[in-house]
């Protein structure tokens, strides 16, 4: 039974993106959750607009018109199927991919995807109100986590699994940088000791949104500072959502493609991974913060886009002869070139 079965390039791409879109849904839920936590009385709109900014969705959001308020941002991400970065479109894209992958993925994965998708089609404006919002975020997180668990337990571990993991990790790394970035946009209007305490509270909330609060407390020094938190989220090698851990796992996975499945074309992607890791571990976090955390995070996000591009070029492009002229790197959304 040791037959190595080839994987269609189209399937590899579908797996990569299905995982990405679902990871995005989970992280959007985390971002929305933390935004609500940060919501400063009287300055709600500003807090929610920060969410739009860190997702670089300003143009898209303002194009829609409507008031710039908390309600509208929540709808933009949770209800508006026309927003390509929102939950409905991401779930739709995930299910679209799952459908094309139906010959490959397990029946249990497909069945859960159908049920999750249908459940989320029933989100109403009422679910975005008050304490309902947090519950909705939990439903979304749990939906993705259920998918992840079913996949872990039922999906055949051939190279398809590697592409699935790569998609998940690249999105997770990207989303963690956004989670860190959101703090940057919400400066605390205070000074001195009061400001320091308020900042620590905010960083605590960021850690909780990343499900890393307790892990951080276990490894952090007693008198920890905001730098310690940033360092934990970006460079820890044990925390599942840390950018560095994601990158190390991707490096291992790319190596698997080469050693275990005999795929060529991993060189360029591995070089990107090297650069990413160098950037993250090459200098101290204090220095990064001093030079501008936001710019640094922007750079990491760009590098991740390049990495996704290299993976696409090496393994997915061949089935898209029509897309030959497209620019390299598909960025943050899958290009949906339809053959039919």
């Amino acid at each position, binding site marked *: 039974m040791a037959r190595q079965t080839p*994987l269609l*390039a*189209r399937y590899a791409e579908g797996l990569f993106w299905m995982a990405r879109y679902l990871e995005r849904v989970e992280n959007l839920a985390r971002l929305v959750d933390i935004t609500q936590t940060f919501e400063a009385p009287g300055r709600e709109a500003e807090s929610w607009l920060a969410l739009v900014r860190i997702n670089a969705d300003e143009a898209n959001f303002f194009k829609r018109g409507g008031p710039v308020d908390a309600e509208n941002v929540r709808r933009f991400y949770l209800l508006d199927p026309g927003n390509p970065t929102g939950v409905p479109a991401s779930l739709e894209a995930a299910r679209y991919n799952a459908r*094309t992958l139906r*010959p490959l993925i397990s*029946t249990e994965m497909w069945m859960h995807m159908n049920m999750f998708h249908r459940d989320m089609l029933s989100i109403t404006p009422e679910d975005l109100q008050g304490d309902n919002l947090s519950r909705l975020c939990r439903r979304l997180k749990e939906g993705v986590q259920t998918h992840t668990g079913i996949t872990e337990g039922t999906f055949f571990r051939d190279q398809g699994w590697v592409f699935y993991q790569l998609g998940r990790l690249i999105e997770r790394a990207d989303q963690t940088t956004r989670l860190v970035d959101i703090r940057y946009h919400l400066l605390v209007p205070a000074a001195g000791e009061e400001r320091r305490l308020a900042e620590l509270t905010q960083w605590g909330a960021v850690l909780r949104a990343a499900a890393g609060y307790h892990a951080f407390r276990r490894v952090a020094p007693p008198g920890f500072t905001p730098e310690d938190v940033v360092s934990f989220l970006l460079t820890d090698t044990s925390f599942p959502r840390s950018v560095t851990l994601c990158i190390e796992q991707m490096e291992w996975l790319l190596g698997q493609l080469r050693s275990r499945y005999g795929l060529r074309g991993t060189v360029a992607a591995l070089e990107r991974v090297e650069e990413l890791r160098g950037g993250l571990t090459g200098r101290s976090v204090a220095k990064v913060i001093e030079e501008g955390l936001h710019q640094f995070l922007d750079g990491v996000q760009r590098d991740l886009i390049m990495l996704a591009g290299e993976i696409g070029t090496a393994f997915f492009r061949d089935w898209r*002869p029509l897309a030959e002229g497209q620019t390299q790197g598909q960025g943050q959304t899958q290009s949906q070139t339809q*053959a039919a």
Partner: protein
Amino acid sequence: MLTAVFVRANGRGPMQLSSTDPFRDYDAGAYFCELTSQRADDQGTAAAVQGRIGAIGLDALHARQSAAETELINLGITFTVYSEASAIDRILPFDCIPRVITAAEWRHLEAGVKQRVAALNAFLHDIYHAGRVVKDGIIPGDLVYGNANFREEMRDFPVRFGTYVHICGIDIVRDHAGKFLVLEDNARTPSGVSYVVENRHLMSRAFPDLMAGIKLRPVDDYGRRLLSAMTEIAPEGVDDPQVVLLSPGIYNSAYFEHVFLSREMGVPLVEGADLLVENDRVWMRTTGGRRPVHTIYRRISDEFLDPTVFKPESMLGVPGLIGAWRRGNVTLANAVGTGVADDKAVYAYMPRIIRYYLNEDAILSNVETHICREPEGLAYTLANLENLVVKPVGESGGYGITIGPRATKAQIESARAALIADPANWISQPVVSLSVGPTLTEKGIRPRHLDLRPFAVTGRDTWVLPGGLSRVALKEGSLVVNSSQGGGSKDTWVLDDGVR
């Protein structure tokens, strides 16, 4: 009474027919009933099923059937209906009361289907080679060579084992006396087999108590048999052939079935864009580069297979595929050009075609068909228009049909005029009283009309999946079993008496 005793002797429990027996008001009338009409070798199954349904009760039946249908939705066992505004995923409605075919009935059907497939393949081989059947006057040449589905590309082209129709679905109905009659041959890309298997799985999950202890022929073997056939027909000299299933993609209404078949065979489901042809060889695009493909089970019509040969605007196919195939580097299943054999006009000649090639009478009769291009057929048709269904031979999809018993005087006369003007364009058939099966409806258990589509797989030899797809017209009095028009399906049980 005898039947009831037999049931107990088989250990299937006593029948508990109470005053609320859901079958109390069931009356199949003059129709043959696929469950309740007496059959000598039904092994007491019909009575057992009725008894068990009585024990479950109507309310529970409805609840369990609806739970079963929800499961179909969750599993995505759906076909997509497109309207202007949206795409809706619909399930093929499932009726939980099985259709029962006895072992002897099945032996008859199986032999008849195999015979039919053999004749279809012999006919196709002949018309694409010497054309003896035309020269010997068995069938008019224009019906063959003038047929829109006749493919010049096929002339003198060798196919392995002489098999053109690898997958065949034959639509069969049953008349008031229970006689099986062939309604139509489907020799191109027949669909529906996935429902046969899924219905059985669903049945065993949702109604295990209905099936318990009844020995049925299994239906799980389809994928393995299909893969074996696809492997057998691969180009000669290929040791470990790569089989793929070619689908138009997720927007095709039968996509679920394509998925099902590729999973059951364990082969990739590819779309046109996944394949390419270079130097007359077919390759699929994988993460590790190009990999050769040897057999393509295609679920795309002939005219979409290769834009360089057929429709240039088709994006579903693969440029150069026909060239690769003509060079013998890849096998297509079904072969190109099989549509000429399942044509309505050719259907009328099938009993003669079977006799011509196999020197046997047809085991399964056609529905009595009068060929109006022949003087006797025309005379009979004109004399009996009020009782006949008159069909044009060239059309499909039910266009131009006149149903005598339901037609107005004016419609009859216009059919008469059309017949006289161009007799060769018409055939006529009596109205068949299709058999019924007890079916769960809002009003309780009622008779509904059924047909049956057995599936035959042919590589070197022909194998027939026990049973087939039973489609049921859910609307009262309706004879239309198509899924697009209110049709559903039932699990089809072939009783196993241990004799093969």
